């Protein structure tokens, strides 16, 4: 009986709930981007008047290379941790073999899979950097003063899927609970992304391109 319930929860989470999640995640991002594009055409001619491919690109690329900017070099440990945090955050869910097997079964397509030992290592690195980011937020006064309860919540929401994922994989703790928890928390995270500061996963590129136009294309000044 207990098994039947756990099974139906799993089927719900990996079925209709997942479809709902992906619709909200992708649809939400599309809506947000579409709205901002529409708004920018009405109210922000300054974005388009001085657009420059090369300055926009430079403004983005310098910030995608570790320690390539004066700002990152001013806090090298934090920026290094932030890079690891983001690399693990994106690579583990996409290239985990368990995820790819599920996609292969469901859609007949999958991505390259990394060895499970790598996934374990990257997850541990991710959790370590998350702790670092959290501690920094509490310890440094100029960051603490900016931080609201929602910021801590978002760190938790980002971290918990990884924590529950690695626990489930290694069958630590109650597996029947850990696996649905992992899926549910991951779905919550995906749903939150389009409607929170985590939208920077796409908006980063646009805000960076703009400052590249503004400082670089108009004035020849670096924005990195």
């Amino acid at each position, binding site marked *: 009986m207990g098994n039947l319930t756990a099974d139906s929860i799993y089927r719900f989470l990996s079925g209709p709930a997942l479809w709902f999640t992906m619709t909200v995640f992708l649809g939400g991002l599309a809506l947000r981007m579409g709205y901002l594009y529409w708004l920018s055409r009405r109210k922000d001619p300054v974005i388009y008047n001085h657009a420059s491919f090369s300055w926009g690109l430079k403004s983005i690329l310098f910030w995608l290379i570790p320690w390539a900017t004066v700002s990152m070099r001013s806090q090298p440990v934090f920026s290094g941790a932030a890079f690891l945090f983001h690399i693990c955050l994106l690579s583990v869910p996409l290239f985990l073999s368990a995820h790819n097997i599920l996609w292969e079964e469901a859609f007949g397509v999958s991505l390259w899979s990394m060895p499970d030992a790598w996934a374990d290592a990257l997850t541990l690195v991710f959790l370590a950097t998350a702790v670092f980011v959290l501690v920094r937020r509490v310890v440094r006064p100029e960051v603490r003063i900016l931080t609201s309860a929602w910021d801590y919540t978002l760190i938790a929401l980002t971290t918990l899927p990884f924590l529950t994922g690695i626990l489930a994989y290694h069958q630590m703790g109650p597996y029947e609970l850990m696996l649905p928890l992992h899926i549910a928390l991951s779905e919550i995270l995906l749903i939150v992304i389009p409607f929170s500061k985590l939208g920077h996963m796409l908006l980063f590129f646009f805000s960076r391109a703009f*400052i590249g136009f503004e400082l670089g294309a108009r004035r020849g000044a670096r924005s990195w």
Partner: protein
Amino acid sequence: MLDPRKILDKEFGKTDLPIDPPKARQILDAHGGARIRTWMSICSRCGLCAESCFVYLSNDRDPRLSPAYKVRHSLGEMYRRKGKFDRAFLEKAYEICWLQCTMCKRCSIYCPFGIDIASMIMAARNVCYSQGVRAGRLAEFTENCRQSGNHMNLPPEELIATCEWVAEEVQEEFSGVGIPIDQPNVQYMYTINPREVVFFPQDITDAAVLLTAARESWTMPSFGWDCTNLPMLAGDREMGGRQVQNLYEKARDLGAEYILITECGHANRSLVYEGPYMAGYPDGKPPVKIKHFVQLIYEYLRDGRIRIDPQKKLTGPVTYQDPCNISRNGGLWEVARQAIAYLAEDFRDMSPNRDYNHCCGGGSGILPMGPDYKPFRLANGRVKAEQIKATGAQIVIAPCHNCYDQIHDLSEEYDLGVKVMSFKEIIREAMIVPEHMRIAENPDG
């Protein structure tokens, strides 16, 4: 962080103007495009901007002075409250926007998302202004601009008379120096800061001497000659637009090829970058070409139109103050250094420099706001004072009136023992006087 209570009481103690939420909402709505919405919503509160800010660094890293904190508690709060403010909030916003930020844009370099905090502080200034929260002096200057097109309310006769007498006086030293007024079809329409007319006519003379030495085709206009834009800094966007429009139109009427700007920082920001938007040009480009004096000086020296006497080059250690609105926000840091190479033997750059340079602390209105605000700008200028001290320079070249006065004050406050000079002053003294300007040694014999 100094307590501004006394000043706020003096400025706003008697103000009991009603708050005008619809007006505030209208301004917030006009500014609330995709950029500001994106910036507000993606700031991840990482705090990296703090280290970029000279106000934060100069005031013992007070966490309330990080750019992210400042914008959140000014413009951010304005959006959250949807225009429903009280006076106490607006005074706090005033303190942030005028006493704690000079809109130098340095934090945009340090932000991983490139958030343009300076533009958001400017928007918050617009809201404050609309609610009557204005620096007394800046408001007065704004009214002067409305009446006369220049912030000191000088009638054209006074400008013309001053130009006449300074030109006459300089005849004793150089021949052939005149200050043409409203000459049509010239290369440069030369525009200045009204304080030059009242307090520092030497600056006008120096410009006339240099332009004459280079055999330039130029004029001053009898109207539209004030290149500063204190209404913009006061937060009056509409009047700020009219102020630049005066110059654009006059230059077109005169058929001048360029508007030439004196050694002033924010005039460059206003005429080249913000002005076209304030005045409503949809393509964001000024309708007339604009040139800053630093660029012109570089061209004269490069082309040999003005030559420097090697004997008269500055020999002592010299450093250069990159004004925010000329370097990072004006793109002229290299030409300035190339010009200095002609003028000084021992040049020592500050660190950081060029587009990374720190603001002096006198910018974006706080200097013309008057002596009450002096303690604030001196405190904010500590980083600049330390930068200058570290170079060991005895002369600081500052091609901006605000930097010039601020560094002069910093030198006294922090015992720097430096002399601040403009390019014009240095070149007038060091140039080889061309044939056509020499006065015959002994006209009688």
